[in-house]
């Protein structure tokens, strides 16, 4: 039913992915902590960056930033209900970035994060 009604309705089916558009300055991405008030996941879309970043709030209050680039052939990943998927050869990764289905063999690249002045700083390394 969700499928039949269109994307407007899809967003209300319980699987909408919060998106935060930003830019990169000095190899850093800054995301307000307040964007996590209603969710524990944000899809970060840096301007002119080839890949999105999955930013997740952990139970201990820290944040995990994953580069959504398949470790098999560098294809962009899409965010699914239970992790990430590559449409090129079918590799799948869980929310922690670990491979759950090949051909990819390596986990997703993880960026260091820290919270400074209510801003989550993702260090692009």
């Amino acid at each position: 039913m969700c499928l039949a009604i269109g994307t407007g309705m899809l967003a209300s089916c319980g699987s909408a992915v919060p998106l935060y558009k930003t830019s990169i300055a000095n190899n850093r991405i800054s995301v307000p902590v307040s964007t996590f008030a209603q969710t524990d996941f944000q899809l970060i879309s840096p301007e002119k960056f080839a890949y999105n970043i999955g930013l997740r709030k952990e139970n201990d209050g820290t944040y995990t930033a994953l580069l959504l680039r398949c470790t098999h052939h560098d294809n962009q990943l899409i965010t699914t209900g239970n992790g990430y998927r590559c449409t090129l050869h079918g590799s799948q990764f869980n929310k922690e970035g670990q491979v759950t289905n090949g051909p990819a063999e390596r986990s997703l690249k993880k960026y260091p994060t820290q919270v400074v002045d209510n801003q989550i700083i993702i260090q692009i390394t």
Partner: protein
Amino acid sequence: MLKTFTLSLLFSVIAVAAYAQQPLSAEDSLTRNLSSSATTVGGYGNAFYQNNSHLQSAKVNLERGVIFIGHKFNDKISVFSELELEDAKLASGESGGEISFEQLYLKFNLNANQYLVAGLYTPRIGIINENHLPNTFNGNERNYVETLIIPATWRELGVGFYGNLTSVPLTYSVGLVNGLDAGGFAHGTGLRGGQFEGRNASANNLAVTAAVQYFYKDFKFQVSGYYGGAAAVSKRKADSLGLNSGIFGTPVAVGEADVQWAADGFQVRALGTAVSIPDAEKINHAYANNTPKTEYGAYLEVGYDLLSHVKTQHNQQLVVFVRDEKFNLNAEIPNSGVTDGALNQNHVVAGFTYLPIRNVAVKADVRFIHTGDQNAALIVNPNPVALPYQTDYNLVNLGVAFSF
């Protein structure tokens, strides 16, 4: 109409060319540095033993060996290739064996969510056509529905546009590729003989493909379609053969829908597809190849990983599965054709797939085949030593597969 499509194609090429000439920005340089290597190598292969109860014979074959090579010129432009050798060897004067590019295309990343491909590629139609690594499906053989009704691996030359929404887990793709050749259709092989696969393809006809995927929790839904012309000859020749020419002249339409679900060790796949060839009667008058008006196929597969709740080294998997495949390659035959009951088949496949690591599979399965009666009128030159046709027989398969 022809002008519209020609202009669209020209526009795509010009857009890609203009895009490729854009100077790299500071951000481009940054993302370019993300890669540790600009060239990637991968591949897959499978070999299996098969015992055929009907022929009372067995064979063992290295069915496929495929090498991927990809090269990233920068984070915006890449090239991908898959070079395949079937049956291990290609020798002059001997039948069997094939070496071909399964894919060879340039990929242009427009942004983090959209990209274009141009070249020889496999459009998103069904499940196997796009993702056909042998360690990712159960059974030594690919399912027959996506071998005969959807002729995977179905690759043609063209341009594809892929993207995904960021607000919802939905992907979309559209493609423009060369059409099929109705003169290549052969009785009992569906659309397969009409493929050009990148070699001197006729561009007298074109085809459009499109697909939408939606992900919801542990589900993946997809609908896809194909519509294209299959005359594959000039207007003058088409007129002389009694075929309709033009971009979509002598059309072939393929529709498909599938759903996949995996959770707690269980995995389920279901797919349905249908092919329509409304001008089949004209094709038969032109080529006498017994082209059907309609084909259809569907399958349902259920599997369970017996090791899903067992902590093992390297996350080993032992999947037991059963699949029911139903297809009819001549569901509707025009007046100019002959119905063959042998092309109406039901297969039940059961077995296991053991993955000591995710990229390596050891497989064992048995395929129980039931077909309708063969139409004796179609046997023009009977083989004097041929065994009587059997409507029920089985294939026992044992094999190994890998990808990396």
